[in-house]
């Protein structure tokens, strides 16, 4: 076990290897390691953020769904109400129309009756005059007896 120059040689070799490692070996690998660490951390961060976003979105979607369901039911209800109202209105209108028609017809009938009565009255008076003429064999002065005849007609 001789101690000799190998000792110095080994020290020099050691120094060179350490220097080389320090200069060319350690930095690229260490950098890659730390960068990957950062990348993974970022990725995990992003993933958790995305999960949170997803949760929020789901919540929002549920909310929207519920709202729209509510709205739909509201609209349906309104439509139902509206249709019932419309039916009611239509019925009302129809009834009013009917009544109006009936009233109109009745009025016409009455009018017709009046007119017929008037006509009848006029004819009766003419007839009466004709009859009277025949009875009296003389003509009756229509102008002189107009008043009398009208009165007669009115009494009919």
């Amino acid at each position: 076990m001789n101690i000799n120059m190998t000792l110095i040689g080994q020290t020099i070799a050691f120094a060179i290897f350490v220097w080389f490692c320090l200069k060319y070996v350690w930095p690229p690998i260490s950098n890659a390691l730390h960068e990957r660490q950062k990348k993974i951390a970022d990725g995990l961060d992003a993933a958790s953020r995305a999960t949170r976003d997803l949760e929020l979105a789901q919540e929002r979607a549920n909310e929207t769904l519920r709202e729209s369901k509510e709205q739909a039911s509201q609209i349906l209800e309104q439509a139902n109400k509206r249709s019932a109202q419309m039916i009611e209105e239509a019925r009302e209108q129809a009834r009013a129309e009917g009544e109006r028609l009936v009233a109109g017809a009745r009025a016409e009938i009455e009018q017709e009756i009046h007119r017929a009565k008037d006509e009848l009255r006029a004819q009766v008076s003419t007839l009466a005059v004709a009859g009277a003429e025949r009875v009296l064999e003389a003509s009756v002065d229509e102008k002189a007896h107009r008043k009398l005849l009208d009165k007669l007609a009115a009494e009919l």
Partner: protein
Amino acid sequence: MAGNTPSPSEYIRHHLQNLTFGKHPENGWSLAHSAEEAQEMGFWALHLDTMGWSIAMGALFIWLFRKAGKVATTGVPGTLQNVVEMVIEFVELTVRGAFHGRNSVIAPLALTLFVWIFLMNFLKLIPVDYVPEIFLRLGVDYMKMVPTTDPNATLGMALGVFLLIIYYSLKVKGAGGFAKELSLTPFNHWSLIPFNLVMELIGLLVKPLSLGLRLFGNMFAGEVIFILIALLPFWAIWVLDVPWAIFHLLIITLQAFIFTVLSVVYLNQAHEHH
């Protein structure tokens, strides 16, 4: 061993001898052909196998990790990137636990130490005779493959860490602050400065020594046991070799980890004010 079978002690000694190139007093600069020759070379010798294998493992580490770094994406990583990132994250976590200052050198330093030592230790799991035998056929007498079983290698790395400890102590605390820490702790009184100085200097010097010797001791002991097992008859080898190798998977990782963590802890102390 080809030809005549060596005695067990020869076999062990042969396996524990480094391939040494150095300045022999008689032969000049040459390869040592025996342990005695290597001994005679003294300090001016170089263990070619230790240097070669450790640099090869260091280069393998740099090449692998650089390759992963070049194609590193922030997206889905490939297999290599996955493994490399796992190691880096492990080291980063360890450093963050043990080192409280702000210094961008510490983590790459710890990564280099951990992976490099692990790879050097890992060479031990290659059966003890394979590679030396190949080199013997090629005409190379000695080949001690695992650099961390050579105290030069482990103490060399510990020396590197030690120099960094001194450097950062001076840089963070200043020369005055560092001197004050060495002379006024643990007893804050002027009359005890020599005592403090001795204690602190011993403490400081023991750090690299313990780092290097712990790793060396563990690896060397394991290697010796592997060699001893290899001396058994061939049918008995695997019975002991397999459990020992599996156990060593744990040891080599653990020792690499201990060296790394202690280095980081020492460097943390260098950064802290008392």
